[in-house]
């Protein structure tokens, strides 16, 4: 960080370089801190990749090797070759994207209302949203499955999309509300002055500025849906999503398969995050406002 302390001017034309040195030292510390945190975040990811690509035998050694000395695609291959993996992958994509679209469609307007309008039931409404998220859904297994059996949506991806949307909506609404709160209202008014309709002002001016937060909300939604096991496995039978198809089986599998499965599942969500990250930080340091 820079310092703004003013030193009394020295009589000689000699320049005081200490603030500059301090600045350099601070920058170096900052870089170091970032690298340390990145290492902390990466090491477990590295280890799971290492374990997923090791031979079964080498996982039984002690001490374990921290270097990729025994690479093998055996377990990963067996995992990817099991029945229904491709179909399950497709189902997961359908469910993830479907959940993303519906929860954005329902959630973003609600978030906007929460941020922009003063209405009396604001707090009860927020609590209502949280209420549905605060109850562990395992106790809803039987009634939920019955509901979908009754309306004949059981064992379809639609059922899972609907459930995941319900689980994601609180996050979407609350995060987008917090984002809209930080978009200054004058921008919107300015757009209206220039002749935009309320909807136009929202779409053309507010949305782009709120994009980082909306990207954050969509990351949560997609990742939640991608990793959700319980709901997906009680609502489907022959049309499973990827985690419902494999995560339960992983719990009982030999260690090597568990690592392979965990590794294979994480790749798509990492790609998704890499993609959305650009929207999330697209305003760093910009002085657009």
């Amino acid at each position, binding site marked *: 960080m820079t310092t703004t302390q003013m030193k009394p001017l020295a009589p000689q034309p000699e320049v005081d370089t200490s603030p500059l040195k301090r600045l350099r030292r601070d920058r170096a510390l900052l870089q170091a801190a970032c690298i340390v945190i990145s290492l902390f*975040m990466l090491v477990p990811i590295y280890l799971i990749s290492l374990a997923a690509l090791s031979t079964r035998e080498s996982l039984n050694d002690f001490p*374990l090797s921290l270097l990729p000395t025994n690479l093998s695609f055996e377990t990963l291959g067996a995992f990817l070759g099991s029945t229904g993996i491709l179909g399950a992958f497709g189902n997961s994509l359908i469910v993830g994207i479907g959940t993303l679209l519906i929860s954005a469609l329902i959630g973003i307007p609600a978030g906007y209302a929460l941020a922009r309008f003063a209405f009396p039931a604001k707090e009860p*409404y927020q609590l209502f949203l949280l209420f549905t998220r*605060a109850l*562990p859904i*395992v106790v809803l297994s039987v009634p939920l499955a019955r509901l979908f059996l009754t309306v004949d949506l059981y064992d379809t991806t639609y059922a899972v999309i609907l459930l995941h949307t319900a689980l994601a909506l609180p996050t979407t609404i609350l995060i987008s509300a917090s984002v809209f709160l930080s978009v200054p209202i004058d921008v919107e008014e300015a757009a209206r002055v220039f002749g935009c309709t309320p909807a136009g002002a929202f779409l053309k001016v507010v949305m782009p500025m709120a994009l980082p937060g909306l990207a954050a909300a969509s990351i949560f939604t997609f990742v939640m849906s991608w990793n959700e096991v319980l709901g997906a496995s009680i609502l489907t039978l022959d049309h499973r999503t990827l985690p419902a198809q494999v995560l339960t089986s992983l719990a009982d599998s030999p260690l090597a398969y568990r690592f392979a499965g965990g590794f294979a599942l994480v790749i798509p969500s990492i790609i998704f995050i890499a993609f959305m990250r650009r929207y999330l*930080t697209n305003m*760093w340091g910009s002085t657009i*406002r």
Partner: protein
Amino acid sequence: MTVDSPPAPVQLDTPARPRRIPPAVLLIAPSIVFMALLLGWPVIQGVLQAFRGDEGFTLDYITRMVEDPYFWPAVRNTLLLIAVMIPLQFVFAITMALLLRSNPRLNKVHFFVWAIPLALSDLAAGLVWLSIFNDRGYLNSVLTSLGLDSIPWLAYDNPATLFLCVLVAEVWRSTSLVLVIVVSGLQGIPKDYDEAAQVFGATFWQRLRHVTLPLLKPSLQVALILRTILAFQTFAVAQALTGQNFPLVVGETYRWYTALQNPNVAAALALVILVASMLISVFYLRALRDKGQEGTR
């Protein structure tokens, strides 16, 4: 040196044609209808299970829950974990977000790396940390190759390391959620405010305390609420690392529902989580209420 809280919500009414249904209602109605249709009946069914016995209303299941030897340890562990973990995560997440904002080299790469744990399901995260902490895991491998003794991190008679392991794993797994919300919130705060404060000679801490944090309040409030509610819901990491030695209330809910096949006691436990989550949410909503809401701009 306080900057007013972010743009306060102001009634944006359409002066042209007064409507009978206020726009706010139109905007939130779909979400209410959706949630009520989908979850209303199951939630009522689920909650009622806690009190419905053979002869109508009963408190047997509540008694049963409280008498279970795992119940009070589970309550204690859950509260302890949340009380230690959440403040820690917020300190980390805010620090990380500020580090990123100060524009270090490779900041995009760093941010991506820091967000990766989000992508991991809690089952997978538990697996990773188990491979690190178990008796013959990576951590003890490193200790051994350094010539040190290995430590039984996850032994049942070692509650301190048990707690530490769960804490480290959970902080690793879920800090990125807070980070992403805080980063997206920081995006909305113009750097000019901070720079202006700097020009006036405010120190880093003063700027953080009086400029950045107040402007971040809406994001922090949401992050706090969501993180706390989700913290009450996750147990896969703790279960993978400690088995039954570090029970959590939500883990007990699953155990009663699946292993013990007693949905009634499970529903009672779920109610405990529900009530605790709601009380904390109300507290956050009130404590961090946006003062600007009443004021005008």
